């Protein structure tokens, strides 16, 4: 069967920055705001999302010819829910501290728009290599987005990074607000504005060459 759509490498590269799930597609905001008050929690969440996205994409891509239009969302949801349950149990068994900190946000991966969107847009239409490339690319993009927000919040809020103290209390007073909900909203809003500014500046630089089409 002729392969239509972007190649696996294109899917992979697109997912990291150009089609970044948080900064470009504005998906998956709930965990982005909730778990980014520390790098460790953020990276654990990114790992869980990577596992679920990869497994779901692989499975959906393998059974894509059996999917009928009416029931496909149901199949996606069922698959994602099963893998999220597995990920949640694994976290509770092998990383109990992180599991307690992440709390209800691990099962909320089920309704994370990123995964359903990738299943719908890519995995159900393309073969296994493209689905895998897409999953890995989007996961790296998600992890980068989480890392950017978590770094700002953790350094300003607790003076540490990944739990290691960087700024002792004598140098930097802790901005407690950064660890609380308002800090999450403000950080993401300002970083999103910064990302928009960056991309419009870059497309303005490229504008003189686009006259060729």
């Amino acid at each position: 069967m002729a392969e239509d759509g972007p190649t696996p490498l294109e899917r992979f590269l697109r997912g990291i920055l150009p089609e970044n799930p948080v900064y470009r597609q504005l998906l998956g905001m709930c965990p982005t705001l909730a778990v980014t008050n520390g790098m460790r929690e953020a990276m654990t969440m990114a790992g869980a999302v990577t596992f679920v996205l990869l497994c779901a994409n692989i499975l959906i891509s393998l059974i894509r010819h059996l999917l009928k239009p009416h029931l496909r969302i149901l199949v996606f949801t069922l698959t994602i829910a099963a893998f999220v349950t597995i990920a949640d149990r694994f976290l509770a068994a092998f990383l109990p501290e992180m599991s307690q900190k992440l709390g209800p946000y691990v099962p909320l991966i089920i309704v994370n728009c990123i995964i359903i969107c990738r299943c719908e847009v890519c995995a159900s239409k393309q073969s296994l290599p493209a689905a895998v490339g897409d999953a890995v690319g989007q996961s790296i993009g998600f992890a980068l987005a989480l890392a950017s927000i978590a770094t700002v919040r953790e350094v300003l809020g607790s003076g540490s990074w990944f739990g290691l103290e960087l700024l002792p209390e004598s140098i930097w007073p802790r901005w407690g607000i950064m660890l609380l909900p308002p800090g999450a909203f403000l950080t993401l809003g300002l970083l999103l504005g910064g990302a928009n500014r960056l991309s419009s500046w870059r497309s303005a630089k490229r504008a003189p060459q686009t006259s060729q089409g």
Partner: protein
Amino acid sequence: MEHLAELILIAVGAAVITNFVLTYFVGICPFIGVSRRVDMAFGMGCAVTFVISIAALLSWTVTWFILRQGAPLTTWIVRSVTGDASARPDLTILSYIVYIFVIASSVQLVEMYVRKFHPPLYKSFGVYLPLITTNCAILFACLKILSYVTDPKELWGLDKALVLAIFGGVGFTMAIVIMAGIREELDHCDVPKSLRGAAITLIVAGILAMAFMGFAGVDASLHDAMLPAKAPAATQPAESQKTAEARAPGPLALRQTDRQR
């Protein structure tokens, strides 16, 4: 009266003090996407409240009777099939899958109802109605109910679960309508180009969250005011403990003066 006070505390907590959107970060996608105009925002809020109530009702029923450890229906089935009278089956591993099915069915039910009885409303919703399935707030409410039903100290009944769900939806509606009102005003302002859209909405949401933080601790004081002081610590000093033990343990005396402000 004590039970009513508990319900009021849960309601106020879910709607205002720990608002689902501004404290728990659930329901952000429609909060950013649908909050352009007040009437659309209010419609979305009502739809979400409707769906969350039905989903809570169904998920509490399934959790209580089927999923939790020692649930009546599953225990009866397992005991009659295996003959083991002390079996206590636990099906909570299936809870996420069951909940997402319950939510999808609730959204279908609401969609059918709205299409039949309010066709113009159905048209104005468009694609947003089925998208309520992916609204984190509904699954979050079901998960909270699960945690309170399986906690042996809480063991929430249907009344508390429904109150949590309905007032969680009310809180979501409040937040999204406030945001819509602010955004309608922002349309007349000169927002920098890179901040337009989601970025300025998030910054405004941050300031709103700060405002709502002012409610923190209100429930602790409401709790003290409404519920009788449950301070059963013995009031006799330790020296006369022997005489106290000799007396039959009766109902515990409540000494209000012991709980100083």
